[in-house]
């Protein structure tokens, strides 16, 4: 398979992006459309005592108001659609629809809202203290499988921790493997480090605007999501209808980074409003609202004790994480962080303990490498610290601990499908000229110092069990139906090419069908978790093989013999021993329609999902249908691994850091689409740099007010904050559990860059470790000028 795989191509959706014809949710218009704006909570935790809507309702141009009791209440600590007990500044209480946004905004100001202030919390450690506040009235932690609980540690727990050390009271999650005590006893060096990694906003470029209207008993919803098929069921539930009555359109998504992975509640507001006011409703989400409603990365207050042998091998690791979880159920970052620890460093023994604490800050959710990337930023500098103390090279100490194909992962210590992190380190070491650059570390020119660093990251990168769906129409065109979504990575396209590859199709005769649930799409996974390249290649391969088999069977019926006598090429099916005996794909498709049965989708496999089944039924009799569930062998975790190499110049007088060079090396199996991988590596690095040195949530602790709303305050990196040139490479060794050898990538590409930059800063400062992410100029100035830091060591959501 070499024709389409591993080649660059022009994805079908790119032209619309450069011409402006690509339509995102806010670009759609309907006759009679009205505008909906949200009244959001000004307080971090409050209860609505009364709402007076009279003046607002009387205002000319106001069409309707939607309150929390008119929409389905979400159970437990879930993100709400609307609420009368907001748990964070910015949580929507009600929505106002009007002829224009300005009128809607004026109406909101005319609403008299009586709010009762409730206790709030923005720092998990405070909440765990016996006298500390709780973010919710029903508790302060989320316990796996048990929901919201109140957990308070004891004064002794706090007293047991020394200055700057994380107290470690009773956790709510724990696992371990190996003999921890023996591991530490074996160690030549034991480090005990407490650390903080900040929360930060996703700040997707496109705020999650949505537009909805009803027609013929169906709800039409234009939304912004990374995924397609995965969204339908959830949105139908939020709207209170059957999935069959929802048409969901999301051809383009202006960024998600995990925050738009599936359905989310507020996207249903225009649907509810539209049903109420009988007009199409556009709910434009502003940048400030996107900060509040657009998810955030969970912060960590953590501590790790690591034991190293003389040669740098990690003998034991004891990891404790307090997760700053927002007010709702959040995400499983701390568990994932622990998983990453177990794989990237393959410690001989390990324990993880954690507790997920609620705070009155924007709800947290998955953000690019959720847990894994926080861990990378926290632990990679500690590895460097150990290397320094043991007299080892930073690449060497990583190499000895890096996973290979026999590595074990996580609590269950299960197998991995493949792992080539050592190879990535080797490749990067050479390509980056690591040894030569490392010799320059510490070199000083005036106030500028050279620093170098290497960073690593991991994310699981593949799933299975989803349905592929193809159609060859009587003209001979191949339609590849894909329900995975479109995050902007083009992997929906590169993975679709696998089907074309199987069928040896000319790519110019192929069309990808996607982006609108009424286009008969199959049940696919979502575009999240770095999984697309692995999962969708398998899925499209399965459908491709099904179509291939049917083509051969039809040829056998037409021309005699059995299916195994036939092969394909140039979009014909031909007899191997007598190639002149052949039929075109177009002809085969016509025959498929005539033959019916499974050939044309009149019969479907038993094991496909209901959504796929419905799609096939709708297309039955229109061509040759290839449909199959991915039942290929699947055993173990699919790991995407990465190593980032960096050289910086740090100015000790101003605290400014300039990245001079960066190389990201990926272990993502076979490279499907080189240009796209390049852009993932570099784009991930940019986001990683932001995580490392500029971005963080900030909350005034007295009032619970957010200080990092909007791009200017949140500080995502600009052109001038990253080097003019960045480099990329891939190990390009196939994974055995994928028909083309591909694994996903995307998340580790960010973590390894963030980690490398943090390591390089400490390197430039001759081994000064901050145990904190991000490291901002003031911290560097304080360190280089020998002053203390302003923040307390374990403080979160602070400057």
């Amino acid at each position, binding site marked *: 398979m070499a024709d389409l795989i591993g080649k660059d191509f022009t994805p079908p959706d790119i032209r619309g992006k450069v011409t402006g014809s690509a339509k995102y949710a806010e670009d759609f218009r309907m006759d009679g459309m009205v505008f909906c704006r949200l009244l959001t909570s000004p307080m971090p935790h409050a209860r609505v005592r009364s709402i007076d809507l009279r003046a607002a309702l009387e205002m000319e141009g106001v069409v309707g108001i939607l309150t929390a009791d008119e929409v389905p209440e979400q159970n437990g600590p879930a993100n709400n659609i609307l609420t009368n007990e907001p748990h964070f500044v910015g949580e929507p209480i009600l929505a106002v629809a009007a002829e224009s946004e300005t009128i809607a905004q004026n109406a909101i100001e005319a609403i008299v809202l009586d709010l009762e202030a409730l206790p709030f919390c923005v720092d998990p450690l405070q909440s765990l203290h016996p006298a500390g506040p709780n973010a919710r009235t029903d508790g302060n932690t989320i316990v796996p499988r048990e929901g919201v609980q109140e957990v308070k540690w004891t004064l002794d727990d706090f007293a047991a921790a020394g200055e700057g050390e994380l107290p470690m009271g009773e956790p709510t999650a724990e696992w371990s493997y190996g003999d921890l005590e023996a591991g530490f006893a074996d160690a030549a060096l034991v480090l005990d480090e407490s650390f903080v990694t900040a929360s930060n906003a996703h700040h997707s470029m496109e705020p999650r605007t949505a537009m909805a209207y009803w027609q013929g008993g169906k709800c039409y919803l234009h939304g912004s999501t990374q995924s397609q098929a995965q969204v339908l069921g959830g949105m139908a539930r939020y709207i209170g209808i059957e999935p069959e009555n929802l048409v969901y359109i999301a051809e383009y998504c202006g960024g998600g980074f995990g925050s738009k992975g599936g359905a989310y509640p507020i996207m249903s507001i225009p649907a509810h409003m539209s049903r109420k006011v009988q007009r199409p409703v556009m709910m434009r989400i502003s940048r400030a609202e996107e900060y509040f409603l657009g998810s955030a990365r969970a912060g960590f207050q953590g501590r790790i004790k690591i034991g190293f042998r003389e040669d740098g091998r990690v003998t034991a690791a004891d990891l404790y994480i307090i997760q700053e979880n927002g007010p709702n159920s959040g995400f499983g970052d701390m568990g994932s962080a622990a998983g990453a620890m177990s794989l990237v460093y393959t410690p001989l023994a390990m324990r993880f303990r954690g507790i997920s604490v609620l705070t009155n800050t924007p709800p947290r959710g998955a953000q690019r490498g959720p847990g894994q990337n926080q861990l990378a930023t926290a632990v990679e500098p500690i590895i460097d610290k150990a290397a320094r103390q043991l007299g080892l090279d930073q690449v060497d100490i990583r190499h000895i601990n890096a996973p290979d194909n026999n590595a074990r992962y996580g609590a269950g210590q299960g197998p991995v499908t493949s792992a080539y992190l050592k190879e990535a380190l080797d490749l990067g070491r050479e390509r980056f000229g690591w040894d030569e650059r490392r010799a320059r570390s510490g070199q000083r020119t005036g106030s500028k110092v050279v620093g170098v660093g290497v960073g690593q990251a991991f994310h699981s990168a593949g799933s299975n069990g989803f349905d592929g769906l193809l159609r060859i129409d009587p003209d001979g065109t191949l339609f590849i139906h894909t329900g995975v979504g479109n995050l902007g990575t083009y992997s929906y396209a590169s993975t679709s090419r696998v089907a074309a590859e199987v069928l040896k199709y000319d790519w110019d005769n192929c069309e990808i069908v996607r982006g609108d649930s009424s286009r008969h799409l199959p049940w696919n996974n979502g575009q999240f978790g770095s999984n697309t390249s692995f999962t969708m290649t398998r899925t499209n391969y399965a459908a491709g093989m099904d179509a291939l088999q049917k083509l051969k069977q039809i040829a056998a019926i037409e021309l005699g013999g059995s299916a195994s006598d036939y092969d394909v090429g140039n979009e014909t099916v031909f007899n191997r021993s007598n190639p002149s005996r052949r039929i075109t794909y177009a002809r085969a498709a016509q025959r498929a329609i005539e033959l019916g049965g499974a050939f044309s989708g009149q019969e479907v496999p038993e094991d496909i999902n209901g959504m796929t089944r419905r799609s096939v039924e709708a297309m039955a009799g229109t061509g040759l249908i290839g449909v199959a569930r991915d039942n290929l062998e699947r055993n173990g975790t699919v790991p995407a691994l990465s190593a980032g190499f960096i050289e910086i110049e740090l100015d000790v007088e101003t605290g400014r850091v300039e990245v001079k060079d960066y190389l990201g090396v990926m272990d993502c199996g076979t490279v499907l689409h080189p240009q796209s991988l390049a852009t993932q590596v570099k784009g991930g690095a940019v986001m990683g740099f932001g995580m490392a040195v500029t971005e963080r949530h900030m909350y005034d602790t007295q009032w619970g007010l957010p200080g990092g709303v909007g791009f200017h305050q949140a500080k995502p990196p600009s052109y001038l904050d990253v080097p003019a040139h960045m480099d990329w490479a891939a190990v390009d060794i196939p994974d055995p559990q994928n028909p083309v050898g591909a694994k996903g990538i995307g998340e580790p590409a960010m973590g390894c860059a963030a980690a490398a930059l943090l390591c390089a800063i400490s390197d430039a400062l001759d081994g000064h470790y901050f145990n904190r992410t991000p490291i901002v*100029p003031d911290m560097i100035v304080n360190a280089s000028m020998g002053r203390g830091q302003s923040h307390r060591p374990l403080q979160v959501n602070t400057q």
Partner: protein
Amino acid sequence: MMKDMIPGFELYQPVEVDRAIELLGEFGKDGWALAGGYDSLDWMKNRGKRPEAVIDLDGLDALKGITETADGIEIGALTTLTEVERNPIIRERFSILGDAARKVASPQIRNAGTIGGNVCQDTRCWYYRYGVSCYRAGGNTCYASAPEALNREHAIFEASRCVAVTPSDTGPVLVTLDAEMVVRNGSGERVIPAEDFFMGPAVDIERMTVLDPGDLLISIRVPNTWAGADFYFEKVTDRNSWDFALVSVAAALRTNGDQIEDARIVCGAVQCTPKRLHGVEAMLRGQSRTEDLAERAGAAAIEGAEALNYNHYKIPLMENLVKRAVRG
């Protein structure tokens, strides 16, 4: 807090300066002079400011452009920052002003943002911009100076109930260059030295400049006094685009060999107005430009600095910037 959608107002688009002044006088506090719009529209969209009338200055071509005068140059208040950056006279004689203009915000903002707007702009204290009712907003407290407040960007000098800082990049440079601001209103015209143009909270806690309602900044005159001097400008920020200064320094040294004949040093973002370092300037006069002098200048510059919870880094940072300015 950010609410979006500008509330209604009456829009006036005069093309004559006199007419603009007439309108500004007529509306007084209820009017708003709109230059580039990058400070103004933020306030209006956030509904923090709701003028009844907006007087759009963009049609006042007479206030655009840079001209030679008998003893210097005159920069129309509505000259864009891009124009200031690229102007050949400024490049040749007052390169420090072009350097500062180039560092403002982003290219698109510089293309429409004006030098007048840049010096008149309101402070960026995040509490104030959030919309809380603080002193500067007419209330009776300061949130940024509270014991646990997040104030890493705030002042280390001249705190007087308010601890906000000047966000302007060109302001400190204009003070360095001994510039003068030409202000006109219905009663006539007056000329104010740049150093006296800015106001701290001790004088008026609700305004950043001496402009009263009805006043219009017409132009900025830069004398040839410092033309071709040894200039130094540095702005330390988090990011290299869009961000306001954490601390900035603007310096002009007139040297004879390595002897300093005269000096101007002004820091930005350390207090509510551009901070001219008179004491340091006196220290430098007649001295040789050495590393030792630079160090002493830095130490002198920060005397009397008082840190808040999160901004003590500004003290060594300011010291270092002054050192670098003297070092050259």
